[in-house]
């Protein structure tokens, strides 16, 4: 797209999108890092954090080099183009008073839009980490993040969010990433868990989490950061963004309570981890719906998601028999599916001008899940050939902090 005059840019929209970019990055660093590190054993806390930081760095470079252009270039119905590889053309010319904008978001500088979308690419790959903690080589994690972002995340983002993408043309609704981020990460996590196998001692020994206080701090950052994730996805500082922010908060609260009620009923004790997991489940489920539903619907979506994610992380997990270590599929996969389908039920035409359709939503979820499963498996095969996937038994026994980084947490 040619450069446009600076006067076409909306200052408020730009400021809000820059703020949202920072909020979404904060969700990963340190939000997801703390959320996950608190749930692993003491001997692999630093490795879990290193995985998240490493993923953020690798995905950033890959996004800049290739993935942004593949995801948001006009291209075909299936994939973008290479026009923006290495951020080519993301210009700002002071003397002429012109700058580049994306056809997807013409009211803000393309540099800001590209960075906002980068923060989504980062968190999606970082979420997958939870499925393979405590046993995957650090080098394999980096290769996986790089290849997965290009081969899986970028095409899916193009299908759903680029106006010419086939799922966007079909009318699939995904305001902030119910399918692109959460179904995608959840399914990828499950495939990783199957491919890597269980941790030594899984199902026989108690894997005591290092610090659920870490996890609570991380969950709090996710809750706050999610305002940028959802309300930022309006790509404007307007009424729709305000409503997205409100429904995000309501769904998080309802999700926490939904999980709590389920756990209190089944286990006779509400846990802190349950509250944190439930609020994340509510946030995940409202993600595709945030710019389409009213507050009452958000409460219902959050509540249903809290219950469904509890089932996903307990009964469904036992059925699947994979060591999806931190329940990436149980929370993000299940929450993403529930939210995407309920968006078809509750989308209100008065808010966005479009109606939802459950069948279309199910088609989008199915397509993303299938592609993510196959694509992730292919990426894992490539990484296995390149560097191997799993650490050896002795490294696993010693803990990945020492084995992979020669660092220890201290006391």
């Amino acid at each position, binding site marked *: 797209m040619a450069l446009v005059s600076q006067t076409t840019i909306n200052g408020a929209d730009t400021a809000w999108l820059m703020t949202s970019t920072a909020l979404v990055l904060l969700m990963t660093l340190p939000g997801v890092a703390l959320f996950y590190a608190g*749930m692993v054993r003491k*001997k692999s806390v630093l490795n879990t954090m290193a995985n998240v930081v490493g993923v953020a760095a690798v995905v950033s470079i890959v996004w800049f080099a290739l993935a942004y252009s593949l995801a948001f270039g006009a291209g075909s119905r299936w994939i973008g183009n290479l026009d923006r590889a290495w951020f080519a053309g993301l210009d700002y010319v002071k003397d002429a008073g012109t700058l580049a904008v994306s056809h997807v978001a013409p009211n803000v500088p393309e540099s800001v839009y590209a960075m906002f979308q980068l923060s989504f690419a980062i968190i999606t790959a970082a979420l997958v980490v939870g499925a393979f903690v405590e046993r995957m080589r650090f080098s394999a994690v980096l290769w996986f993040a790089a290849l997965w972002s290009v081969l899986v995340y970028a095409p899916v983002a193009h299908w759903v969010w680029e106006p010419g993408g086939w799922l966007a043309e079909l009318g699939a609704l995904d305001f902030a990433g119910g399918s692109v981020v959460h179904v995608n990460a959840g399914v990828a996590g499950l495939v990783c868990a199957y491919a890597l196998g269980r941790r030594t001692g*899984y*199902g*026989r*020994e*108690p*894997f*005591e*989490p290092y610090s659920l206080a870490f996890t609570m701090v991380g969950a709090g950052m996710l809750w706050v950061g999610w305002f940028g994730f959802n309300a930022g996805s309006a790509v404007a500082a307007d009424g729709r963004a305000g409503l997205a922010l409100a429904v995000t908060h309501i769904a998080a609260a309802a999700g926490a309570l939904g999980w709590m009620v389920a756990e209190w009923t089944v286990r006779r004790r509400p*846990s802190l*981890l*349950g509250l944190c*997991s439930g609020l994340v489940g509510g946030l995940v489920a409202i993600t595709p719906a945030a710019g389409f539903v009213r507050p009452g619907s958000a409460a219902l979506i959050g509540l249903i998601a809290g219950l469904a994610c*509890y089932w996903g*992380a*307990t009964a469904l*997990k*036992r059925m699947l028999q994979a060591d999806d270590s*931190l*329940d990436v599929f*149980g929370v993000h996969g299940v929450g993403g599916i529930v939210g995407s389908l309920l968006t078809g039920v509750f989308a209100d035409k008065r808010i966005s001008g479009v109606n939802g359709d459950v069948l279309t939503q199910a088609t989008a979820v199915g397509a993303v899940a299938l592609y993510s499963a196959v694509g992730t498996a292919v990426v894992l095969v490539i990484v296995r050939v390149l560097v191997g996937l799993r650490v050896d038994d002795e490294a696993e*026994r*010693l*803990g990945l902090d*020492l084995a992979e980084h020669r660092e*220890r*947490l*201290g*006391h």
Partner: protein
Amino acid sequence: MTESERVAIAARLHVALRRKTGRVTDTEWMAVNVEYAAEMVRFARAHAADTKDTELAEIATRLEEVMAPIAAEQRVRAATQQSVAAGTATAPQRTLARYIGGLR
């Protein structure tokens, strides 16, 4: 006893064994692995007894002391595992047992 203190004592034993017996050990592994530490303590004591080396014997005893809590923790975990399997777990054991096969 912190991990860094355990490593410090393991490092003392590593240096003493290297100097006095020529044996090379893995300091970090000695500070975390109960079985390996116990074997190094046994070896150091045997050498100390042969050579009447009280300093080496003292370091070995010190390492044994600092590894004791880890050994105890491992015994508790093993007992928990057996009790849960047998259906005779106590309340604290049941709390730990909730983390078998899942977090939630």
